[in-house]
């Protein structure tokens, strides 16, 4: 695993829940509680994708939610990364091939990190977010390279 090099800013995260049973969502919240307390590293949940660096998506995505998820992804500023939390979002899970599911999340928006589990533990979620952070640092350098 690479190293975070610049820590230029806090990492702000937006959480979109599709057809999740909420188990993954509760584990995301657990990562914010005093036991794990990711906010001490500057990782913070925000209320709008317009402010977010990373998009956390949970659950298989129902057809009605697919265009909303695309819009949320579009609204995030560049550079950005997407982390899928849990088996349902990764592969469809128990909803695989269901008539009302738009497909695994990577068929709807580009995904950078998969965190499997039903639900994954908060440590795994934190690890996924840190991987997304590395990806963003890489993208940021590329953007700076383009600017320069």
């Amino acid at each position, binding site marked *: 695993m690479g190293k975070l090099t610049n820590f230029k800013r806090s990492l702000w995260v937006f959480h979109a829940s599709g057809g999740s049973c909420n188990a993954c969502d509760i584990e995301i919240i657990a990562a914010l509680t005093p036991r794990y307390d990711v906010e001490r590293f500057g990782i913070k949940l925000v209320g709008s994708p*317009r402010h977010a660096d990373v998009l956390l998506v949970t659950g298989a995505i129902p057809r009605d939610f697919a265009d*909303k*998820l695309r819009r949320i992804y579009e*609204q*995030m*500023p560049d550079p950005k990364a997407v982390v899928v939390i849990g088996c349902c979002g990764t592969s469809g899970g128990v909803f695989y091939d269901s008539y009302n599911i738009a497909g695994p999340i990577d068929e709807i928006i580009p995904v950078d990190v998969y965190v499997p589990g039903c639900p994954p533990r908060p440590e795994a979620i934190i690890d996924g977010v840190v991987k997304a952070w590395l990806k963003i640092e890489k993208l940021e350098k590329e953007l700076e390279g383009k600017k320069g």
Partner: protein
Amino acid sequence: MTWIESLTLNSPSGFWNPIVWLAFLIVFALIGYLIYSRGNRSYKPNTDQVKPFLSGNEVEDVEEIRVRAGDIYWGFIEALKGYYNALMRMHTGDVRDYILWYLGLGAVILFVLVGGV
């Protein structure tokens, strides 16, 4: 009196000088430009990236969702639908139609007032 002083307008509450105003304008424009230049240049105009966030829902055209002042009269318009429908058909927004109405009604009024004499 210098030329700058000659441009100064004094009043009991202060003074006004276009050169001083221009100097302030330049300073504030520079500060504004500095803030602007530090902004994120990678944003994509004319995409969802610049639209407001509405829980992922599409932002409808403002014209479709706003409450217009004319909506206050909704009750009248609904109750007098027959009358308003006829009026709205006549209200085309074409000035030539209105002139035709003006001339036509003017002719009728003239006929009523003087036509019988």
